[in-house]
């Protein structure tokens, strides 16, 4: 059952071969068995999940089921979910039971009838690439418990990889869906900025944050994205576009597909074993009828620098709301209001979050705004223009998702800059606002390697098609970690 696709699970539910309650219980049992060693979930609430499963079973019995009604899903703890502890991986929200639902949660639960299994662990306020900045402790990679699952959606990635959930939600500000998908042998998609509502998704960097699906296949991602995407008037940057069926192009043949290979993604700095797996995937695509063209993203090497100005600037503004007044943690002792703010924030935020707030406060402060913030925004434009030029030559862009495989816990924790560079291939996509995905393309030793596909604006269905055809010809995405049977 745990290896079945969402489509197969849906068919089993429709044929009454299994009920949603039974399926949900199966996953709750796996969570209670394996979560103590993985730490993928921060919060599990079996009663709540089973109540939702019962409602889904009734909906199926009434003949009102949608394609995913009754299927369990793990939710990243960045999404506010009514009645659920919603921590965002932080001590600051360690007592916050959300009084409302994020649009993503509302659409999945009330709209599509999915059953939330729990809230997954994550880097604090989504700031990290290893899940080690979580107040709730690091998540272990199911492929090797001594290694990180990636971040910031590390709990969602570990949960799906360990078959503690068939599918999960994630968010991606600089690579937080794609990098953990890569490190855990999953398929994950970051949609075009504005396709999925940010309402109720705790903000990190508002001009970059975007939610998306994390799953075992492109087909599963397409099905989950169908429930997540769509205009929402409660998010001022949500795009008012006609709704799409993201599964519509899955079977389209790849003959004539032009795959752009940015020369900057195939130079030094990438693990040779990762590069070998990516090159083998290119050969597979050529067998499927695609042809490759060399393209150039000449400013992509500046993306990490520009990102670490823009994202912290937006974060310093967004996180000013955590002041111990309206919700969340408040320091137990203080002298006056100013002291309450600064003690609450000193105690409530972890080290990485503080670093980024300080960077943001600095680059926005008087005398530095033009040199840093405006310069970063100008470089952001150059990076977006590079992609626009490349997409004149090709239909999709391909390269590695991450320069290496899963690293050891603690290996990069002491050096923020080394950690930041693990997102070197993913960050430019967020700056431009483009859709990008990661899919399994092989192994380096025993560790999974991810292939990144980048599409033009609103090319999600095409990306999913390109990934799906590859997954029909290969079985990397079907490999599961050992020892979790």
């Amino acid at each position: 059952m745990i290896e079945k696709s969402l489509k197969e699970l849906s068919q089993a539910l429709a044929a009454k071969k299994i009920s949603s309650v039974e399926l949900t219980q199966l996953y709750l049992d796996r969570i209670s068995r394996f979560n103590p060693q993985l730490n993928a979930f921060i919060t599990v609430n079996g009663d709540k999940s089973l109540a939702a499963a019962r409602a889904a079973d009734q909906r199926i019995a009434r003949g009102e089921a949608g394609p995913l009604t009754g299927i369990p899903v793990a939710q990243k703890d960045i999404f506010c979910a009514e009645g659920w502890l919603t921590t965002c991986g932080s001590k600051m929200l360690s007592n916050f039971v959300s009084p409302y639902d994020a649009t993503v949660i509302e659409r999945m639960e009330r709209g599509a009838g999915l059953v939330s299994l729990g809230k997954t662990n994550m880097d604090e306020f989504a700031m990290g690439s290893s899940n080690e900045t979580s107040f709730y402790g690091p998540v272990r990679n199911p492929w090797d418990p001594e290694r990180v699952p990636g971040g910031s959606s590390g709990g969602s990635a570990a949960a799906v990889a360990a078959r503690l959930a068939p599918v999960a939600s994630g968010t991606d500000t600089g690579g937080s869906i794609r990098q953990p998908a890569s490190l855990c042998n999953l398929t994950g998609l970051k949609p075009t900025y504005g396709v999925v509502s940010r309402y109720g998704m705790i903000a990190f960097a508002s001009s970059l944050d975007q939610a998306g699906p994390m799953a075992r296949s492109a087909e599963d991602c397409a099905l989950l994205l169908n429930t997540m995407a769509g205009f929402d008037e409660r998010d001022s940057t949500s795009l008012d576009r006609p709704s799409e069926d993201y599964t519509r192009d899955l079977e389209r043949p790849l003959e004539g597909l032009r795959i752009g290979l940015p020369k900057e993604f195939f130079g030094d700095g990438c693990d040779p074993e990762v590069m070998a797996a990516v090159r083998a995937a290119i050969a597979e695509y050529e067998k499927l009828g695609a042809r490759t063209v060399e393209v150039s993203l000449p400013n992509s090497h500046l993306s990490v620098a520009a990102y670490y100005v823009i994202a912290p600037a937006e974060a310093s503004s967004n996180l000013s709301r955590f002041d111990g007044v309206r919700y969340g943690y408040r320091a137990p002792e203080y002298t006056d209001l100013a002291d309450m703010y600064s003690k609450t924030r000193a105690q409530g935020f972890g080290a990485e979050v503080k670093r980024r707030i300080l960077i943001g406060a600095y680059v926005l402060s008087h005398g530095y705004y033009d040199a840093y913030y405006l310069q970063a925004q100008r470089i952001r434009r150059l990076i977006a223009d590079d992609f626009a030029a490349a997409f004149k030559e090709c239909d999709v862009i391909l390269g590695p998702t991450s320069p290496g495989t899963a690293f050891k816990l603690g290996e990069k924790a002491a050096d923020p800059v080394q950690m930041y560079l693990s997102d070197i291939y993913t960050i430019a996509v967020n700056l431009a606002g483009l859709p990008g995905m990661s899919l399994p393309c092989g192994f380096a030793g025993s560790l999974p390697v991810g292939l990144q596909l980048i599409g033009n604006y609103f090319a999600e269905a095409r990306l999913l098609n390109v990934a799906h055809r590859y997954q029909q010809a290969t079985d990397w995405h079907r490999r599961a970690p050992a020892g979790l049977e």
Partner: protein
Amino acid sequence: MSLTLEQVQRIAHLARIEVSESEARTTQGQLNGIFQLIEQMQAVDTRGVEPMAHAQDVSQRLREDRVTESDRREAYQAVAPETEASLYLVPKVIE
């Protein structure tokens, strides 16, 4: 460029985050490492490039000025550290 200890303490004050002197020293080293990475940007000639504030080139959507939310004050205040008579309580600001 390099941040001084005083600058670190000043931005921590601006950000309302209390830091001890030893924390400020550790932070100073880390921030300077990060700014070394950020400095790469300064070598790029961006004259005439329009800053890009946002991923989509769209203007702010406006809505009609009408009430769309129901009153859920009790639910929202239930998660507050301290309230009284529907007000959020903070330490006394004006004597």
